[in-house]
């Protein structure tokens, strides 16, 4: 199965080694070697489940190149493949999937009409059968011998991917070594989830071409899977031995739900946990909130400034702790697909009490080293764009979104401005307000102004007891308005930034309890309260049609600070919604 006796990276002998012969992995340096596509199919799919289709397709030599037919015949004989990709249907972890595996061994994995057609057929089959499509890519680029027809395969495969996207059918890509050229610039980068094997070369132009063009040596690690992960173009790097279980997990999280305009993303009763407490409905919960205006705040036990300090403490539990305590499983997905993976923002998919959800959160560090790496929880535009990408995916696959907010603010740096931090936050405010899926937001620590609001638009907004949410830091307020930065304590009191204040103002729905010393003393207690809230809300929200959700969300946002004057603008707004719906229907 392996063509080499020695590992091409470290040079050690791999012939006869168990790890190498079974998985194609060097046992000394864990370099992932090229393996036979049929071997890969055996490793990925349930045994005997793979049924090939379109295996009879071969190239007709469309532009009449001399010697091309012979080259094809030669490659077919040597590799036991008809062309550079095998397509078929299969099951992975008992979930149905359409699988396409490309092979570098057949003419360098180059994409010509046959590869393009087979990939397109695989995607169409997925569309017709409502089955997720998985493609393992390996390619040196377009098949030059087929001229312009090779180039057009990029358009063909990409528009098929567009169809899958429109129909809400998942496309999962596994980038293997190497994936370059026309394949990278078409369907390979269009997956809903893009995985990569460790050490894979992934890029558009080949390294030698780039070096020749710029006249410089390329930096170490350029165009590797790790590089693409850091640059935000790959969701996760997965060791070949873990690929099957990861794909099974992803398939399980993306099972097709027959949904028209009503949300039925509700797990069966046995799967969810029983939550005590009233099962209110959307209208009445909005109603109770409006009645809460002007309620007097009880005298607080902790001063506002003390809460600010507590919210900023390094040991305060963050999104990572809550994910661990609340979710049954969680897979982090990286990257914004534009520029970078922001380490200050975490995003991914997981399960809470049987509900499949997308989780987004600000991420601080628990020690100095982590804080420097995560920029103290201050996101660049990439963080907000990653949040948006994952929220849009949640909308497509009908998953609720849970946001955990804890940030001093968006990062006010040079590069932030260069890449449009303002635009990133603004776009999130716009898109999240109309997202056709439930959104529940929790402020667990610092709600730092626009940086917090960028992932803080939701159907429900909660604050932890000691969390704070403000338009500017108390220090900033003291500097500018009180003209004395040392009066931050006073400013904190005056600004009304605590959970109690915001509940009184009708901005948040409820306050989540912490133990008296603070959440850090018993994170599990607060985590349980958060989980109960999520399950209670999802039980209601998931039963509502998406349009209704959006309508009430807009109503809540529109009504902030309006208090008694609600009725005057509600009816005209309702009319607008009806008009929009009518236009869509006809």
């Amino acid at each position: 199965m392996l063509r080499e006796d020695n590992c091409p990276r470290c040079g050690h002998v791999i012939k006869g080694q168990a790890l190498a012969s079974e998985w194609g992995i060097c046992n000394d340096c864990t370099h992932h070697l090229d393996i036979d596509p049929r071997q890969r199919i055996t490793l990925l799919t349930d045994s005997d489940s793979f049924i090939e289709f379109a295996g009879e397709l071969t190239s007709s030599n469309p532009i009449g190149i001399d010697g091309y037919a012979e080259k094809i015949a030669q490659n077919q004989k040597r590799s036991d493949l008809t062309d550079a990709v095998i397509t078929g249907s299969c099951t992975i972890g008992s979930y149905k999937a359409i699988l396409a595996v490309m092979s570098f061994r057949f003419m360098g994995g180059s994409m010509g009409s046959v590869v393009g057609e087979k990939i397109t057929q695989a995607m169409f089959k997925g569309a017709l059968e409502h089955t997720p499509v998985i493609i393992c890519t390996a390619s040196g680029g377009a098949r030059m011998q087929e001229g312009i027809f090779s180039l057009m395969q990029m358009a063909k495969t990409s528009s098929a991917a567009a169809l899958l996207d429109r129909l809400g059918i998942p496309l999962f890509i596994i980038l293997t070594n190497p994936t370059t050229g026309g394949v990278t610039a078409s369907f390979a980068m269009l997956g809903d989830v893009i995985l990569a094997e460790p050490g894979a070369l992934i890029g558009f132009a080949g390294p030698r071409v780039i070096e020749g063009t710029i006249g410089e040596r390329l930096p170490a690690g350029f165009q590797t899977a790790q590089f693409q992960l850091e640059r935000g173009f790959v969701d996760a790097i997965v060791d070949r031995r873990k690929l099957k279980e990861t794909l099974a997990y992803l398939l399980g999280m993306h099972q097709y739900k027959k949904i028209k305009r009503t949300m039925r993303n509700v797990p069966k009763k046995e799967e969810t946990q029983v939550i005590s407490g009233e099962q209110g409905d959307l209208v009445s919960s909005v109603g109770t909130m409006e009645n809460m205006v002007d309620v007097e705040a009880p005298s607080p036990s902790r001063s506002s400034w003390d809460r600010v300090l507590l919210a900023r403490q390094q040991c305060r539990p963050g999104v990572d702790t809550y994910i661990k305590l609340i979710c049954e499983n969680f897979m982090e997905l990286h990257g914004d697909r534009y520029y970078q993976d922001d380490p200050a923002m975490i995003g991914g998919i997981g399960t809470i009490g049987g509900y499949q959800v997308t989780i987004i959160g600000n991420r601080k560090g628990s020690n100095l080293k982590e804080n420097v790496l995560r920029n103290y929880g201050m996101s660049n535009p990439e963080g907000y764009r990653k949040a948006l990408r994952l929220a849009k995916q949640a909308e497509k696959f009908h998953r609720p979104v849970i946001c955990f907010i804890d940030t001093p603010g968006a990062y006010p740096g040079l590069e932030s401005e260069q890449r449009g931090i303002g635009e990133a936050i603004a776009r999130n405010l716009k898109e999240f307000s109309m997202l056709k899926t439930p959104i529940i937001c929790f402020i667990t620590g610092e709600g730092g102004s626009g940086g917090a609001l960028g992932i803080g638009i939701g159907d429900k907004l909660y604050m932890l007891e000691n969390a704070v949410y403000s338009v500017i830091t108390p220090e900033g307020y003291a500097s500018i308005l009180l003209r004395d930065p040392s009066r931050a304590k006073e400013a904190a009191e005056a600004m009304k930034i605590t959970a109690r204040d915001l509940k009184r103002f009708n901005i948040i729905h409820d306050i989540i309890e912490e133990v008296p010393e603070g959440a850090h003393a018993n994170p599990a207690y607060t985590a349980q309260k958060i989980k109960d809230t999520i399950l209670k809300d999802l039980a209601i929200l998931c039963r509502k049609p998406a349009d209704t959700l959006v309508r009430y969300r807009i109503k809540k946002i529109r009504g902030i600070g309006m208090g008694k004057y609600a009725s005057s603008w509600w009816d005209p707004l309702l009319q607008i919604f009806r008009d929009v719906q009518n236009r869509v229907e006809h």
Partner: protein
Amino acid sequence: MIRSILIANRGEIALRIIRACRDLGIRSVAVYSNADVDSLHVKMADEAVCIGGPTPADSYLNGSNIITAACLTRCDAIHPGVGFLSENSRFAKATENSGLIFIGPDSETIALMGDKIEAKRIAKAIGVPTTIGSEGPLADMQTALSYAEAVGYPVILKAAAGGGGRGMRIIENRSQMPEMFAAATKEALSYFADGNLLLEKFIGNARHVEVQLLADSFGNVIHLGERDCSVQHHHQKLIEESPCAALDEKTKVRMTDAAIEIFKHIGYRGAGTVEFLLYNDEFYFMEVNTRLQVEHPVSEMVCGIDIVQQQIHIADKEALPFSQEEVTLTGHALECRINALSPGKIENYIPCGGPWVRIDSHIYSHYSIGCHYDHLLAKIIVHTSHRNHSIRVMKRALQELVIEGIVTNRDQQLQVLDTMQFKTGQFSTNLFDQVMSVQKSQTRKKAYA
């Protein structure tokens, strides 16, 4: 996996650690004070960060600046080198708390062994002979006097939290005690912030022999031979060699076994040294150095193992790749330290070389030696098959060495190597003072002649 290391030190040891990093493909980050801008370790590292002003307190002893520099440059670990913060348990703890790896033992071990009294207690408890003296810190001068009476003069007062030869006073008789006690307490307080002293019987003509050990985080402890560091001046080592010329095989085995026993008992991790006094074929435990030592190249030449690299591997949670049986000690290695006796600018520097000669140095032509730090310029290390051969090659190497513009101790070293005592291997810690006093009287004779 440690991929980048910040070296919290300067001079030739920083260079040594950078070289080990280079050989392992690890990114090195140097730190420097304003006075060290032109230093070689700054030029050689992959990255360098200025961490403060010229005084050590501002820079090389500034733990928070160093840790912040490590986090800002995305380092995985800090190597503390020798001296400075290498035996500071609070710094080790702060490093670990910041999410970085401290290349050395854990902070508790450093604190434990840093207390000389505690260290002796532990050694005694497991049956290793220790130098006779006070069992605990001296409550006051009266207690010191009574102990001194018990063990007999001469005695030595040592700072309990001390190291590097500081905070020590030798007392010949009763009358010297008040003055020396006060002076030692004061020096201990100022250098180590701990005025506790202990008292020991002073053996003037003992040999200082230490054992180099490596211990991983899986409980494996091995020794890399012993070093004789008896040629000292004011407790500062000048010449070191391995193996010790006056150590017979049986005593050597007992000594290395005792050292290994101590390290296993305290669960030591990393490179470390156990120091003994050798007197009349008997050895007495003195203290443990929980760090790399300046004279480590002597052991490296004899056993063929890169000790700094092993420190990094151990910190990376790897097991020692060899057992005691696989460690072979061959030949004889000798090291001479070349110190500057005055600050100034090196007008011309031509290093020595040739077969069997290794030179660890950070100096170069036109480099200025300041007054803020220690005066070690270079370590000349020679490794041959026999002691006589090593001495001959060392003399040749020292004569080749050219350092013009400042006064060095090169000639003094040559004198020591020329003495009959050194050549026959029959010398002790008072050799250097003897040589210098002989020289003084000779000079005086010449003056009067």
